[in-house]
């Protein structure tokens, strides 16, 4: 229910925002070709821009519910199709980035917690705050400089192959790992102090078993929820990373659309971003329920 409300509000805000945008889109579209005022008026009518606002809004929501995001003003193609075309590339990047970010983040975070107040902790927390602070558009350029231009190991730009995915996903993953590592560290430190850990140790379980089976599991469930909240960051990071490595994807689509004032496309990307965010968080809730025995019983 909350998810539906969030989506509705996101869609409505996107609609309102686009209404507030100054300038006449029909005018903007036809300006280059030197159209007459009459042609502009005809285009306005065709785009439905002269209809009352309530009608435009109702039409927009109805279309949205059917998965119709309208047509691009620039390319006059369905926005949903343009988004679907770019989705695999961005999805691939986001997924690889998330996997790397979670891997590094959980590893660094739990290592720092277990070896707390030692040099390992210092190194791990320093790496985490570096990940948090380094702009992907800078680390990306450094990576291109080192691995593509100097060492010539990997291609600098473009997409389509696994080799093209390595640098962008590493850059994105490193940026994501910072916040995850900090979170996991705090959570593991907390769990290490819980009575059930002492109990497990008292039963004679080995340190490794306690850490991997009991502590990490108890730490990961809430960490996952916050990692899912980081999905928004991941999406934004993917946008910038695509631009750095000149990859096609939703990010490049959105940037072009903003520069050309192609509002249906901007709106489409924003609404589908919100949809993806809601779905990911829903999935995270389910996984958390599966990881946490208390919640699992509640659901069953």
């Amino acid at each position, binding site marked *: 229910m909350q998810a539906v409300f969030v989506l509705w509000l996101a869609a409505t805000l996107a609609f309102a925002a686009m209404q507030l945008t100054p300038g006449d889109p029909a005018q903007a579209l036809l300006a280059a070709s030197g159209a007459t005022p009459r042609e502009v008026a005809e285009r306005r009518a065709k785009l439905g821009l002269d209809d009352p606002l309530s009608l435009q809004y109702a039409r927009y929501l109805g279309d949205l519910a059917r998965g119709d995001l309208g047509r691009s003003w620039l390319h006059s193609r369905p926005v949903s199709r343009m988004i679907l075309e770019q989705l695999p590339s961005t999805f691939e990047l986001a997924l690889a980035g998330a996997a790397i970010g979670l891997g590094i983040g959980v590893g660094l975070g739990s290592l720092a917690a277990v070896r707390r107040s030692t040099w390992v902790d210092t190194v791990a927390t320093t790496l985490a705050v570096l990940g948090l602070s380094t*702009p992907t558009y800078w680390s990306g350029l450094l990576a291109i400089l080192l691995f593509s231009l100097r060492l010539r190991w990997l291609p600098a730009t473009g997409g389509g192959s696994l080799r093209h995915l390595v640098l962008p996903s590493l850059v994105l993953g490193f940026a994501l790992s910072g916040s995850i590592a900090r979170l996991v560290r705090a959570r593991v430190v907390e769990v290490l102090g819980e009575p059930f850990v002492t109990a497990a140790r008292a039963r004679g379980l080995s340190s490794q078993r306690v850490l991997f089976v009991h502590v990490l599991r108890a730490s990961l469930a809430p960490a996952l929820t916050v990692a899912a909240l980081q999905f928004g960051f991941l999406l934004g990071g993917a946008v910038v990373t695509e631009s750095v490595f000149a990859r096609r994807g939703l990010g490049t689509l959105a940037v072009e659309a903003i520069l050309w004032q192609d509002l249906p496309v901007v709106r489409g990307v*924003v609404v589908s971003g919100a949809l993806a965010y809601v779905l990911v968080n829903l999935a995270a809730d389910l996984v958390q329920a599966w990881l946490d025995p208390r919640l699992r019983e509640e659901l069953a």
Partner: protein
Amino acid sequence: MIEWAAPTRRPFLRQPVALTALAWLALIALGAWLAPLLAPADPQAADPVRALLPPGPGGVLGADFLGRDVLARLLWGGRWTLEMGALAVAVAVGLGLPVGLAAGSLGGRTDAALMRLVDALLAFPGLLLAMAAVAVLGTGLVSVAAAVGLAAASPYARLTRSAAVEVRGQPYVEAARTVGCSAWRIALRYVLPNAAPSLIAFAATQLGWVLLNGAALNFLGLGAPPGTPEWGAMLAAGRGYLRDAPWASVFPGLALALTVLAANLVGDGLQEAMRPQ
């Protein structure tokens, strides 16, 4: 495994890392403020002879593809970056604080309605929300700051609310209510001063986020007009000459990364200084 001591509180002035970070922020601010005096050259003056000049006697940080001095542009760029960052944090606080305070102090239906709105705003991925806002507001310093500030407002509202709710349960607030203080008086007189430290610490952390994303908009070409000395835009402009003149991109990126890092470290330090014992 459980003998570790609880995290201790350390006064801000006794944290060397946080103090160094604060000094760096002050240095950047000073450099930006005194840019007209300090800059070795006009940041906009193109000089074909100096194009792609490496760092050295001709220019400490070299020159970009148009022969513009990188150090001069870096100093002037700090101005743009810090003004944008300060303005954006002001927007985030200006929007988030009243909403969070109202929700946390009034409770009930107002709380539920406001927080629903905040949650929905949170559901927009931050940078995407800022990009959408730029699409509406147009490009330039003020709209980038407004866009990024808007995107940063909802976490601020959430934090303010939870701080307000926490303070609201305290006995002295109960007492104030009993003697007939209005909700607004309690919010401003008791809740706000008590929540202020954590709100300030969070604002410092948010400065880092805001700088990162403001520069990202500029990097994407959605911010300052072309040619403006701004760190993100400089990074993007130098990208085409990465092989021959990496300094034109590397130095603005380094300045930005260090500044964001400093903001994060100051935020961490403030949080550590206020950790409950």
